[in-house]
């Protein structure tokens, strides 16, 4: 699952961050702004449209839906990161120019988190599949949306269960990007809330994380 681009949309529907990770640049920055706010609108509409069966069953059936995302080990971390010591993490992170000793910022250990977690996005869009790409959306409790566009297409998916697994992988990845955001954007005194993100550290870390994906 190669990622083509990562977008971050603030709670009012504005695009605050966009990073293209492949070379084919077809849209200009204005188009991306429109894409982001359209996505924000479509998300709101989608959550208002619920199948009649779910509406009629009220709480008993809807509460049975499991929103737990399983923890998938070391998504977006160096392959060597799996069950190794601190030492190898230093060597793998030595390629970046940040000069930090700890590759996970304020997070300790070999991965950002190690438990399954609940998705906050319960009735909005979580995945959009097209013939050219697949889009994954992760929304936080504060209303921030993280969007990943991957090169995965229906034809490249052979296993029927693969689709749900890739949502889970995407949610794991996007929660880690949220961790990066909380570390490198929220703790930047020059960043003003809701405004476009211009942080070299964040950029660098995000690129590194996405390039670690298979």
């Amino acid at each position, binding site marked *: 699952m190669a990622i083509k681009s990562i977008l971050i949309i603030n709670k009012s529907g504005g695009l605050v961050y966009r990073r293209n990770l492949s070379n084919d640049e077809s849209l200009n920055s204005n188009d991306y702004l429109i894409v982001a706010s359209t996505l924000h609108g479509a*998300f709101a509409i989608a959550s208002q449209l619920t199948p009649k069966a779910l509406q009629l069953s009220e709480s008993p059936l809807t509460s049975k839906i499991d929103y737990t995302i399983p923890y998938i080990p070391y998504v977006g971390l160096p392959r060597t990161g799996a069950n190794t010591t601190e030492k190898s993490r230093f060597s793998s992170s030595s390629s970046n120019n940040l000069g930090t000793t700890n590759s996970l910022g304020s997070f300790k250990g070999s991965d*950002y988190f190690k438990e399954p977690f609940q998705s906050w996005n319960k009735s909005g869009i979580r995945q959009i599949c097209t013939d050219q790409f697949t889009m994954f959306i992760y929304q936080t*409790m*504060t209303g921030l949306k993280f969007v990943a566009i991957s090169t995965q297409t229906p034809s490249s998916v052979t296993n029927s269960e693969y689709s749900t697994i890739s949502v889970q992988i995407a949610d794991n990845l996007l*929660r880690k990007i949220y961790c990066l955001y909380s570390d490198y954007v929220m703790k930047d005194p020059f960043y003003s809330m809701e405004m476009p993100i211009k942080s070299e550290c964040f950029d660098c870390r995000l690129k590194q994380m996405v390039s670690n994906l298979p």
Partner: protein
Amino acid sequence: MSSSSSLGGHSKSLRLAGEDIWKNKTEKVNGELFTLMYGSIVSQLCRDYQRCFPKVNDQLYTMGYNIGVRLIEDFLARTALPRCENMIRTSEVISKCAFKIFLNITPQVSNWSTDKNAFSLVLVENPLSDFVELPMDAMKQLWYSNVLCGVLKGALEMVQLDCDVWFISDVLKGDPQTEIRVKLNRVLKDEIPIGED
């Protein structure tokens, strides 16, 4: 593997979750460094405002608010806790997870109002006020750790809980205990992100 599903349940597992995140998932710094840094900020503010302590309180509150609206993202990214269904749950998350992760203390929750919308956090120990003794003129007016109120206010507002947060007593002022009051005004329903219900 089962720890996340139990996060939705009992308060005991909430405490365990908070402890685990503090212990294994969060980088540590020397606590004294933090205490002294805060001390230097407060003393600088007292100088800047020419010992007009109500102004210092306000400024600390504003600084706390600005910290809180950002810190909530760190907290949520770290814990990924689901939305709290009531203030009882909120109070537990604050005392057992939030204070534990960021300050390594667990305040006691007490003095519930009858409608269960207001509670007190009793800080048995307060790392901000270590090594501190208030000068005579500040004793009556300055809430030394007022930044905490601002942090709570800002962070709760970002998860759509409009609260009032203020200090009731402080051991630095000679009171028997340090107590922060949190009162829920209303849940900002319109602002809850779409797609969560």
